[in-house]
């Protein structure tokens, strides 16, 4: 039995798995608020089965609800894109703990776009952070962090799944420390790093055909959340035409002697296969031509 309320704000599998960890450890959950639509979210069904109050509030409704809380309450913000207003952050009866899918203070911002930039920037490692929420975006004191390796064939989806898996593991190990009001965490280093918004997409979503093999490969992998369509398909301007990249394949070098060239194949119904051949390997694109004003 806890002497404070626990409320979860968030969406999807990780929010549900963390809720399940708390219940398995005998904690009582006061409510779960799903703060973003996600048609594959297991939260509605889970809350129904375990009989926890479940809401899908608008941001304004959530602010009203949080303003009304007067008892000591721990808010777990797990893959939650609701931004806490200062009036909520300043409430002394609330302890707000957020999961962020980066090693803060690096890569602050919208969780969905973080894996995109991690891959595009060619990072060799990435990680996750549980931290207290303060009045700015992802700047609160750090409770716990852990890093993982980024492979050179990881896609944005892989990075997101690794982060969710590691974040949930950390939660299961550290949740008792998270809810301890004496645990103030440690302050983040102050940096001037950018905060990534959801619309910040590398090169505005256009593949540049002057890039080298590595850069082109990183760009294609960084926007790849397949099978989910979380971002618009990448595009490319080739030979004066605008193409949408429907599929890609990255084939590292298997033999010596490849030279830079572009090969066009199978021009059918405005769809083409285009191979970019580099000394380091081949990048195959399946593209569809788009009208200039499309």
């Amino acid at each position, binding site marked *: 039995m806890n002497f404070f309320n626990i409320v979860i704000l968030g969406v*999807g*599998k990780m929010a*549900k798995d963390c809720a399940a960890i708390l219940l398995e450890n005998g904690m009582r959950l006061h409510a779960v608020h799903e703060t973003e639509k*996600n*048609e*594959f*979210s*297991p939260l*509605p*069904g*889970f809350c*129904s*089965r375990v009989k926890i109050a479940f809401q899908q509030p608008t941001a304004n409704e959530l602010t009203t609800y949080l303003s009304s809380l007067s008892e000591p309450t721990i808010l777990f913000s797990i893959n939650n894109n609701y931004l806490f207003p200062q009036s909520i952050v300043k409430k002394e009866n609330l302890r707000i703990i957020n999961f962020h899918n980066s090693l803060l203070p690096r890569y602050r911002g919208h969780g969905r776009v973080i894996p995109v930039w991690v891959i595009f920037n060619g990072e060799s490692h990435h990680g996750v952070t549980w931290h207290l929420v303060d009045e700015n975006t992802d700047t609160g004191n750090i409770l716990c962090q852990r890093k993982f390796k980024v492979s050179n064939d990881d896609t944005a*989806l892989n990075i997101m*799944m690794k982060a*969710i898996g590691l974040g949930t593991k950390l939660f299961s190990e550290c949740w008792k420390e998270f809810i301890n009001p004496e645990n103030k965490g440690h302050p983040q280093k102050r940096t001037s790093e950018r905060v990534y918004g959801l619309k910040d997409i590398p090169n505005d979503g256009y593949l540049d055909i002057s890039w080298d093999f590595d850069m082109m490969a990183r760009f294609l992998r960084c926007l790849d959340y*397949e*099978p*989910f*369509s979380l971002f618009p398909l990448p595009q490319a301007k080739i030979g004066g035409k605008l193409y949408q990249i429907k*599929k890609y394949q990255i084939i590292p070098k298997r033999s010596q002697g490849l030279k830079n060239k572009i090969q066009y194949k199978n021009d059918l119904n405005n769809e083409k296969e285009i191979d970019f051949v580099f000394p380091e390997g081949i990048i195959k694109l399946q593209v569809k031509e788009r009208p200039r004003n499309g």
Partner: protein
Amino acid sequence: MDKLLSILREIRPEHDFAASEDLIFDGLLDSFDIVTLVAKMEEGFGITIRGEDVQYNNFKNLKNIKRLIKRYLKSDEI
């Protein structure tokens, strides 16, 4: 249908998929499972599922998944 069931059982052997009308709500599949399921469906049935078809209604239950596969195969032989 047997092939689809065997793919699902490979992913989550503990569940009775035929008994559920809503695999997501009932907790038999989550978003991670959908990633695996789509990859295994593509490999097992030789199809490529478009991103716009990866939506709740197409994966709600066995009947709907079967309908999706049929649409790609243009055949009843699944």
